[in-house]
């Protein structure tokens, strides 16, 4: 099931892992920021785009991405592949994803441990899955297909969730480790998602991070969240990407970077988009933490692969 073993023909194309951008901070790329970014010229850092927004044939989205790609590494972040769903991947969507990666040669390519399509309906949300041997096999098969298509390891992002499934037989970290070991994929560690899920499901974010296979992490996401309440009036966090990174998430980030060393880190901000200097300042705060630990050697995982 491992891509590296099975896909002999892929060996002709150099795989881009570990990631070539190093311990730098990046931001989501929003078109309203393009003039400000271009005015400032070449900067340290990278920009991440949602793959689906650039799957049209032409037009202004591609002009904007070409302009930003000229001077900066980019990260292509897929949102809609439905890797976590039980049905076969959408072949047309897979071909579009491959085409986008081939066209822009991003430094980072990632997708989600989630599903968004069932039958013919696309739900435009990152929906949860149970963690069982059956779903693990299905996810691994889907990731093999994506990695074959893009000819490089995919970074798989841990989800934020609001519900659990009674039929789950393993923890999320065991599931994710299993996926990484079987497919050779890398991981995108979303620390806000860890904090949101830990709060929502009543587990320790630090324990989760201690169990997480950090040696496979090729990118970190940081984002803001919103607060609501659950059926019993207890705090329920929503992964809203609509504000600054919370203090608790910054603290977890520093703990991870201190232990594992610097990793490309993205500030995600997808709605109620602020002016560019506000987003840039969040990235600068992440860069300060990364720079503080540039000499840190990666620690071994608690569960060695």
């Amino acid at each position, binding site marked *: 099931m491992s891509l590296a073993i099975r896909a002999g023909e892929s060996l002709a194309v150099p795989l881009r892992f570990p990631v070539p951008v190093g311990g730098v901070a990046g931001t989501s790329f929003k078109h309203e920021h393009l003039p400000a970014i271009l005015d400032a010229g070449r900067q340290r850092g990278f920009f991440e785009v949602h793959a689906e927004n650039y799957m049209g044939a032409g037009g202004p989205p591609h002009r904007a991405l070409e302009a930003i790609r000229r001077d900066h590494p980019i990260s292509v972040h897929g949102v809609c592949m439905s890797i976590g769903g039980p049905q076969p991947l959408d072949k047309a969507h897979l071909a579009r994803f491959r085409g986008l990666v081939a066209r822009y040669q991003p430094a980072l390519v990632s997708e989600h441990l989630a599903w968004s399509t069932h039958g013919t309906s696309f739900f435009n*949300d990152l929906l949860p*899955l149970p963690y069982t041997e059956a779903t693990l096999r299905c996810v691994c098969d889907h990731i093999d297909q994506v990695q074959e298509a893009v000819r490089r390891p995919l970074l798989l992002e841990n989800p934020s969730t609001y*519900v659990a499934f009674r039929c789950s037989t393993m923890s999320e970290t065991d599931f994710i480790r299993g996926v990484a070991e079987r497919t050779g994929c890398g991981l995108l560690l979303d620390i806000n998602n860890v904090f949101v899920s830990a709060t929502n499901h009543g587990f320790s974010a630090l324990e989760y991070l201690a169990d997480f296979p950090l040696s496979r992490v090729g990118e970190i996401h940081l984002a803001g969240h919103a607060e609501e309440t*659950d059926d019993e009036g207890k705090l329920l966090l929503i992964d809203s990407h609509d504000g600054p990174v919370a203090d608790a998430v910054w603290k977890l980030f520093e703990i991870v970077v201190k232990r594992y060393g610097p990793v490309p880190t993205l500030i995600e901000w997808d709605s109620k988009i602020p002016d560019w200097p506000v987003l840039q300042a969040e990235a600068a705060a992440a860069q300060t933490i990364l720079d503080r630990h540039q000499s840190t050697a990666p620690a071994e995982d608690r569960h060695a692969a």
Partner: protein
Amino acid sequence: MPLEQHLSFAADFAPALLDPTLTLPPDVTGPNGKPAGKRYNVYRNNVTVSLIDALAAIYPAVLRITGTDFFRAMARIHIRSTPPTSPLLFEYGRDLPVFIEAYEHARSLPWLADVARIERAWLDAYHAADATPLSPARLSAVTPDRLADLVFTPHPATRIVRSQFSAVTIFAANRGTAPVERIDASTPEDALITRAGSDVVVRHLPPGGAVFAACLMSGRPLGEAAASALDACSGFDIAANIAGMIEAGAFTSVTSGDA
């Protein structure tokens, strides 16, 4: 539990996302068996709100005309009956104009569906493949005896929307934020939507122009297209219309029909 049952989770989870009358998926729970109603509703809300927002982004003039509450109520009904079938949200909403025509609360706005059709065409033009428009000089190099045989290739962004109402004027007045003057909605208007470079442009076609443009876009030669346009409108100005379409960037190339 057999493996197949583990893979039924999406079939169990999906139906209630867009149907508030359905109960929670049976296998879903909060931590330690806690109830999950409000938790599942986060997904319901994410799906519904994000799809309504997607329609609002595709149809800003319809939103402005109807107001936010009207639009969101209408969109909520539409997404429940017609959820997206592609993960590309800029492809969504193609069925909304027909839905609007049948929507009882929109009966007093008979032109609204055509405004929506222009907005949908606008977004198609925005994302269409890039291509260099036909240069006007190419036509001036053709000898007059060959003009009738010319066949044009439409630019990938070119669209035509025909309306029995003043849909182009209403569209144009409501795509921005400037105050809207009173508009007589009863004048039939046809739209030519193109994107020669980076900006989508919506033009109001003169009488006969839509028939002419549609004929040319379907690959019929200039002579036939002109005859059809003259049938539709006796005062049709062939030279002005072909010059206008080329200037708009509606075509990418021209060939002699027998070439």
